[in-house]
């Protein structure tokens, strides 16, 4: 198992109310899982808790990555183990250039296995494949990016940094159909290269283009129903009530 989430309960630090109310989830290596759920059901919270955002506090349960509990690891340590999260709303970081972040991050995650020159040319080819201009690399991270550019920028990072487990939090929201298809193809590419996936969405649209192993319907802080791709279409047609 690359990821095993057991009875995970979590809340915002300093607050009482549980947002995650006992999440159970298992992803085998190389698989792509989808979590579908309505707005406000706690999907982003789950993604953040797996990544170790200190804003949230785990009150019960466990998260195991490749057999090891990661609850006591810092975010950067989790990233170094091979977990990566693309954000629903990627943050602007003025002063830090896109390529500078990625080259620094690459060295942290993979060491000195490639020269600076190799890395830079790899980065350039990923960026052009996604249909962004090379100047994109010179811009400050997410600053003044359009919605689509942000999402594409997250995908560039995922392809370049090659995590073992990639969590995509609403990578599809705000993309037009062409961009969606392009991004989905990139995600399939990432999967083919061996990365396991957890795709979070509230919309079945992206599944038309994605190579998916399992779908989970997620309601009010826990997984309510699991199945194959057809489950997603069923939810789309009949509403989340089928899982309640």
């Amino acid at each position, binding site marked *: 198992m690359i990821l095993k989430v057991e009875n995970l309960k979590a809340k915002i630090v300093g607050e009482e109310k549980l947002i995650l109310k006992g999440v159970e989830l298992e992803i085998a290596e190389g698989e792509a899982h989808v979590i579908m759920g309505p707005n406000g059901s706690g999907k982003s919270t789950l993604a953040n808790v797996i*990544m170790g*955002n*200190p*804003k949230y506090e785990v009150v019960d349960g466990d998260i195991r990555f490749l057999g090891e509990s990661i609850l006591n690891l*810092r*975010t*950067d340590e*989790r*990233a*170094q183990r091979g977990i*990566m*999260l693309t*954000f629903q709303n*990627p*943050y*602007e*970081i*003025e*002063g*830090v*250039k896109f390529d*500078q*972040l*990625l080259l*620094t*991050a690459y060295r*942290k*995650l993979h060491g000195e296995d490639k020269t600076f020159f190799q890395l830079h040319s790899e980065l350039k080819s990923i960026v052009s494949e996604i249909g962004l201009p090379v100047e994109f690399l010179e811009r*400050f*991270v997410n600053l003044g990016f359009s919605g689509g550019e942000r999402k594409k920028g997250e995908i560039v*990072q995922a392809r370049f*940094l090659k995590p073992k487990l990639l969590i995509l939090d609403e990578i599809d929201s705000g993309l037009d159909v062409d961009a969606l298809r392009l991004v989905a193809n990139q995600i399939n590419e990432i999967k083919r290269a061996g990365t396991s996936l957890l795709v979070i969405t509230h919309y079945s649209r992206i599944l038309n283009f994605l190579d998916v192993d399992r779908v989970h319907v997620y309601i009010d802080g826990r997984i309510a129903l699991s199945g194959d791709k057809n489950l997603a279409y069923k939810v789309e047609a009949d509403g989340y009530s089928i899982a309640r």
Partner: protein
Amino acid sequence: MELQKLLYELKKREEFDIKVNAKPAIKLPAGLNKKLVYEISKAKGEPDWMTQHRLRSFEIFEKWHDPTWGVDRSELELSKIVPYIKPDAKKTNTWDEVPEEIKQAFEKLGIPEAERKYLAGVGAQFDSEMVYKNIKEELKKLGVIFTDIETAVREYPDLLREYFMKLVPPTDNRYAALHGALWSGGTFLYVPKGVKVPLPLQSYFLFGNPGGGQFEHTVIIADEGSEVTYIEGCTAPKYDIVNLHIGTVEVYVKRGARLKYLTMQNWSKNMFNLEIKRAIAEEDAVMTWVSGSFGSYKTMVYPATILKGDNSVSENVSISFAGPGQHIDTGSKVIHIGRNTRSTVDARSISIGGGWSFYRGLLKITESAKGSKATVSCTGLMIDNKSKSDTVPIIEVHNSDSDVGHEAKIGRIKDEQIFYLMSRGLSELEAKSLIVKGFIQPVVQELPFEYAIELNRLVEMEVESSIG
């Protein structure tokens, strides 16, 4: 945080801490009185006009009340400061003649090496006097004068008298008056008409004695059509008592000349650093201030340019860094007098670990400065919730024919940004350093390569020691 505790906290930060066990030749007692001022003049063997200048400055000092603004100076007891410490070394232009202990300290700072590699001339001051001053022979032949003020008093009295404390007279403020009475060491630089100095000249100021005061004076004259870059660097070991630095800089940029003044201030964190820096630019002249303020306990410095001549230009780029316990009060002043004058101010400050950055700026466009253009941008970055940042930019425009742009921004690094970067594998320290380095990039790119590296290293150390 009180000073003692702060000093204790900062004991970790040893790398720049260079202690020197050199016995001084003359160390006047602590305290401030007319007799002491007279003693300094006598020890230097000065002509009467300078002795009179000192005594008159001291009288003015005694009449001035302390300004009510700026950093809290209640821990600064002027009567406990030792105003004059003459090192036991004669002024020389070969490092071999500099006493071993002092030479080693400058070697540790990389000064002789820098001189060999990328400087046109170097001055090195230890405590109250310059111990080394040297300039490349070719420049000497072209008539460039690079020496200390004492030598200038003796060898170029007429030239010096014309400029010495004319732009910053002792009547300017209480600390200018004190400086006028106690000044010692510093730089006199004259670049003749049309001479373009290809490499920077640098003076480095090092403090060697606890409780001492350093009052170096700098006069720079860039004559018509000349070009020069001058670098001022400062450092001192830490002591458990307060040290005081009141440096004064007067810069005269003549018609069509270009002068760039770089400061890298890294005083130890027991230093009260109260500086006065002022330039006057004639027609078509370009004056550039590039300042990095890192060290000191409390700093007040506001490099000023008076754009007197038509079409003259002032650029002011600065970065200040206020760490735990530090209060760094910096800024800029630009006064437009000539027509079609231009000025830009890009002031950036970083506060971290409870530090306090304060930007104070004055931009004044007088009635005569028709067709002038000015922009002021001041930005503060706070690295955590404990730190403080303020900006007080004052803009006065007295004609309707000028164009003024202004931007002030104070931001804090957000937890979300750190989380974002950490989710890419960077540690908290790396994440913060990356943001801070990006923030100071516009200043870094103004610096010679070696200083840019040094500055980046300094930033990493500062961020690291503040995260703990």
